[in-house]
């Protein structure tokens, strides 16, 4: 066989791998012949990988590859696809029956995965002793049952159309093994055992995380034997390490200028666009901001397309809604606020602030005043609004933001479960300090709409309700969308399959070199 013929076959097999999880055996075997190692940049100190207590994307990405959920997200489309559950059905969005995959093996010899593991995992989250911050995600469950080892039936207190997100391979949705948890004691976060494509072989919290291929992974072993994550915090150093060939794949490059250098040097610029929106949270209990015209004026006053084009054409794009355009629920007809300083001035005059006012923006000092903020200050000053930044360090910032002690602050929306976003950010039950509704937003019409949407069984009607909710939200504007963020994982050209999903995560089972 000619070499071109062989590579064509290989490509075909690879395509098959990506398309249908079932038919991968031969490709994986081909990969397993060599003991390949992929050196990956990891950008911060690891904080542990216990699904019940996991924080920050980089740690979540490790967990994403170690654990599995009943469902998971497709790396390219963001759609929910089967994972440990082969299939499922639901009644009235209330009773969810999952049919589990058979023969799935736990890592490190913990045997076969069964329905009991699912029940244990969810109960663990719900156990107050676990002190999981994600407990609220599962409190909607009324009963959980395992009629047989391969079936799980979950009954919800109220209908929830987005429940498949809850059981996805993310946070509370990740399935753990009782025996492994008990064996780890208080070191659970450092001894994760899952059913995912990679297991944690060793970790040096100061410098290195090593993942090894889980040979018994139900889709077949991953092509790469070893994932060697090196902690490199500085973005410029990380770029140099990639250019030096010390690493193969750079997890997140957040400096536009480095992206330019890497692009010019011919590296592969793996990326996902619009993975999340940055919002300006308008605290409606503020006497000035409670006037909707003021909030709209702010939205009209800033030219985000110009800003993103100027400072980070790769990393940012303007955002026009709290929903991302790729989402199913995205409403195209919701109001948009294009740059219009005259209109902003007019609205301010109508609201009684012809000379503007002072907008105090709480922010973290971690990056100092960003270029974006500097532009915002510029733009706002042109309509008479004086934006003053209150910069505090990250813990303080988080604390004040959660307590609602600010005039305006920002939030980065993780944009995967639209229903969850709408509830967390717009439902009055979730007003801070209790929840994430930092705007203190309470519009009964919107509340009724999202509650109805969640319960609605008919998908078309649900979409309509969601669209209505978006229209209300974008008219009231408790959150002013500013930018949508893109995520870049530059790599050497021979690294393939780096598909970053909308949680900014990469499924390494798909990666090869």
């Amino acid at each position, binding site marked *: 066989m000619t070499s071109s013929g062989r590579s064509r076959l290989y490509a075909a097999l690879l395509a098959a791998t990506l398309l249908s999880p079932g038919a991968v055996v031969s490709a994986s075997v081909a990969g397993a012949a060599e003991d390949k190692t992929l050196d990956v*940049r990891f950008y911060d*100190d690891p*904080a*542990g990988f216990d699904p019940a*207590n996991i*924080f*920050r994307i980089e740690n979540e990405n490790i967990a994403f590859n170690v654990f599995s959920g009943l469902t998971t997200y497709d790396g390219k489309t963001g759609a929910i696809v089967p994972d440990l559950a082969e299939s499922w059905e639901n009644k009235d969005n209330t009773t969810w029956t999952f049919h589990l995959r058979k023969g799935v093996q736990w890592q490190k010899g913990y045997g076969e995965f069964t329905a009991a593991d699912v029940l244990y995992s969810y109960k663990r989250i719900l156990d*107050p*002793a676990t*002190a999981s*911050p*994600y*407990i*609220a995600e599962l409190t909607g469950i009324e009963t959980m049952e395992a009629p047989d080892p391969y079936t799980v039936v979950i009954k919800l207190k109220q209908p929830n159309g987005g429940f498949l997100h809850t059981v996805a391979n993310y946070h509370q949705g990740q399935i753990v093994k009782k025996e492994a948890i008990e064996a780890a004691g*208080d*070191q659970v*976060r*450092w001894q994760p055992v899952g059913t995912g494509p990679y297991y944690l072989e060793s970790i*040096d*919290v*100061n*410098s*290195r995380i090593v993942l090894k291929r889980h040979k018994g992974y139900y889709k077949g072993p991953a092509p790469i034997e070893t994932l060697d994550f*090196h*902690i*490199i*915090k*500085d973005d*410029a*150093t*990380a770029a*140099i*390490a990639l*250019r*030096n060939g*010390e*690493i193969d794949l750079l997890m997140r490059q957040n400096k536009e200028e480095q992206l330019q250098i890497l692009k010019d040097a011919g590296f592969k610029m793996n990326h996902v666009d619009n993975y999340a929106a940055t919002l300006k949270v308008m605290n409606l209990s503020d006497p000035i901001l409670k006037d909707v015209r003021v909030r709209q004026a702010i939205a009209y006053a800033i030219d985000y397309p110009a800003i993103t084009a100027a400072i980070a054409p790769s990393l940012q794009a303007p955002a026009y809604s709290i929903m991302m355009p790729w989402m199913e629920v995205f409403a195209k007809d919701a109001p948009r606020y294009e740059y219009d300083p005259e209109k902003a001035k007019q609205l301010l005059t109508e609201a009684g602030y012809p000379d503007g006012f002072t907008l105090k923006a709480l922010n973290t000092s971690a990056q100092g005043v960003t270029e974006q903020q500097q532009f915002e200050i510029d733009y706002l000053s042109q309509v008479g609004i004086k934006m003053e930044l209150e910069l*505090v*360090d*990250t*813990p*303080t*910032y*988080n*604390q*004040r933001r*959660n*307590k609602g002690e600010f005039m305006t602050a920002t*939030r*980065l*929306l*993780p944009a995967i479960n639209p229903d969850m976003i709408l509830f*967390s950010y717009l439902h009055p039950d*979730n007003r*801070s*300090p*209790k*929840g*994430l509704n930092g705007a203190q937003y309470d519009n009964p019409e919107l509340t009724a709409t999202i509650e109805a949407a969640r319960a609605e069984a008919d998908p078309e009607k649900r979409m309509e309700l969601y669209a209505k909710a978006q229209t209300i939200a974008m008219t009231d504007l408790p959150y002013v969308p500013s930018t949508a963020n893109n995520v870049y994982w530059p790599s050497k050209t021979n690294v393939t399959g780096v598909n970053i999903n909308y949680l900014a995560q990469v499924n390494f089972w798909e990666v090869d070199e």
Partner: protein
Amino acid sequence: MLVYSLKRFAQLFTTVLGVVTLVFFTMRMIPGDPISAIAGDNLSGEALDRMRSQMGLDAPLFVQYLNYLGHLATFDFGNTVTTKLPIIGLILGALPVTVSIAVGTIVLTVLISIPLGTLAAFTAHKGHRMLDNAITGVAMVLDLMPSFWTSLVCLLIFSLTLGWFPASGTVSIDDPAHLLRRIALPVLVLSMAQVATLARITRTSVLEVLSEDYVRTARSMGWSELRVLFRHALKNAALPIVTVIGLSFGNLLNGTVIVEFIFTLPGIGNLLVGGMNSRDYQMVQTLIVFYALIFVAINFATDLIYRVFDPRVQF
């Protein structure tokens, strides 16, 4: 000697206790706690409060303080607050990195600056200012360049362009050759900042010694100038030099943060900043105790070295 040791011990005790108390209450006065540090964009206040009470961070301050002192007295440094890692292990893991950087820097600095400073002093003593000015000037320029800037320039030159040293990679004392390659650039960068100070001190003290009466005595007995320089001047000038080296060693241990960050070295500066950013009280407190211990130990070592150089120093 016994008396001296007792005194030292008393000094150590008061310094460490003072430091511990200061850091304990300062840390808790600072807004934000370990829980708020891990709160990202999508954890609600309710969820965080649950975790807070779970971790017992709401006990009365004084009780926490006494508890802490009790643990300290039994050398129990505990675990990190949120990640539950044994702190002593983290510090012992990071210490060799930082210590190698500090030692490397001191060695390189000494190797460069003492000959330079001596040369400058020698020529200045003879009334030739040219070389003296040049040395002092270059040292000053090196001293004044911000280390984060020189770090990147060094990376671009020595790592990217010349390919001599890696920019990343695991550091371990088990592999000294690799360790040396990894710390070479940080050591270079840090030495740049130290050379000026040490060269200046060397120059000043050698110059001072050169005008001492006993140098003239030695010259009057037919000792050559160079011999006088090496046998008399350097030995007598050693005290201020040793003091500065001791001080800079202490400074280096907490001044390596920036290079550790840029060169991705897992040292204790890294731990400190990380601990501070995550409000890990336990971590920061323990590190500070370490710093205080090191500070006192360096003072002690400096004193011992004094004794080697100057027989007049008695304990």
